[in-house]
């Protein structure tokens, strides 16, 4: 029945047989997708609930921290450099420091949004918890 698709027992992959060479790219792509789909149903979701929630949270905390530091740092440096070039002492430093602060907050909000998109709101609540607005 499916004799053609079975391995020949030599353990070799690659273009050993004649009909392998005829497989076109899109056919290969389709077969790869089918394999992935069938694998996904059999394998447990390793990435999603691999028990590494706290590890992900630690990484998230470091992202917030570095995002904030980098924003303010870069803003301050640009302002300081412009002041140094134009000799207009504290004006650009102040403006760009504030701008850097804003950029840092924007970045942090983006990180938070991306993190929230992964874990939809309320998913971390216990199942069947009371909804205030309904009662």
């Amino acid at each position, binding site marked *: 029945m499916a004799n053609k698709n079975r*391995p020949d027992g030599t*353990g*070799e*992959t*690659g273009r050993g047989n004649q009909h392998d060479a005829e497989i076109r790219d899109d056919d290969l792509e389709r077969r790869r997708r089918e394999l992935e789909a069938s694998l996904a149903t059999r394998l447990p979701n390793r990435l999603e609930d691999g028990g590494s929630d706290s*590890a992900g949270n*630690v*990484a998230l905390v*470091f*992202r917030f*921290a*570095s*995002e904030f*530091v*980098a*924003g303010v*740092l*870069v*803003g301050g440096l*640009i302002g300081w450099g412009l002041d140094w070039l134009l000799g207009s002492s504290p004006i650009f430093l102040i403006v*760009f420091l504030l*701008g*850097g602060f*804003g*950029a*840092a907050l*924007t*970045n942090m909000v983006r990180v938070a949004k991306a993190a929230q998109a992964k874990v939809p709101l309320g998913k971390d609540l216990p199942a069947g918890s009371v909804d205030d607005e309904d009662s």
Partner: protein
Amino acid sequence: MAGTADRVDPIHQFHIVDLFQIGQIGGMKFAFTNSALFMLIAVALSFLLLYAGSAPRALVPGRFQSVAEEFYSFVHNLVRQVLGEEGKAFFPFIFCLFAFVLFTNFLGLIPYFFTVTSQLVITGTLALFIILMVLVVGLAKHGLKFFGLFVPHGVPIFLLPFISLIEIISFLARPVSLSLRLFGNMLAGHIVLKVFAGFIVSLAGLGFGGWIGAIGPLFMTVAITALEFLVAALQAFVFAVLACVYLKDALHPHH
């Protein structure tokens, strides 16, 4: 790595040592350092893993091949999830980046080994390379429209200068945050590890009471070592993910 007497210097592990001098470039010494040595080792190991893993070409993978295949498909799925099918061109780049950071991070956890990624120069160079690539790809693909990245849609005209300023700064902050995070994680982790390990040595020098007291820091050192393994893998992953995310902006400037 105990220093002189019983004092432990947690910074000593980050010293760059010239192994041998290659030559001089414009009066600057050009030497092969311990950092360069461990970079070479990391590259050689990652090459060896993939080469040894792909050599058998067995249909049912053995141990090495299994590791190599998982390694490959993990990064492959990551690139495809974030960048989509058109991002396949960046897969070799992201894979090299991930392999390099992962192997240097893990190599640094072996005692007496040098941690390449605990040097801001290295992480900064990697981050700058990523951001330059984003700029080049974005400009090549979209021309001047790429700068539409700094002009979000639906912003009132009188707010636009401020928003653009903030967007430009946030773009420029990306390589800084990318490099600072990896550098900071590795540096801090290794210093904490050395400090706790130093407590064991110092306490053990006090006699029997010290031996009892050293159990606490010993436990902490073991626990932090485990944590550092986690951090090493996680930070390599985060570095690769963010490289993908930033490259996505180059492919699709209008988010």
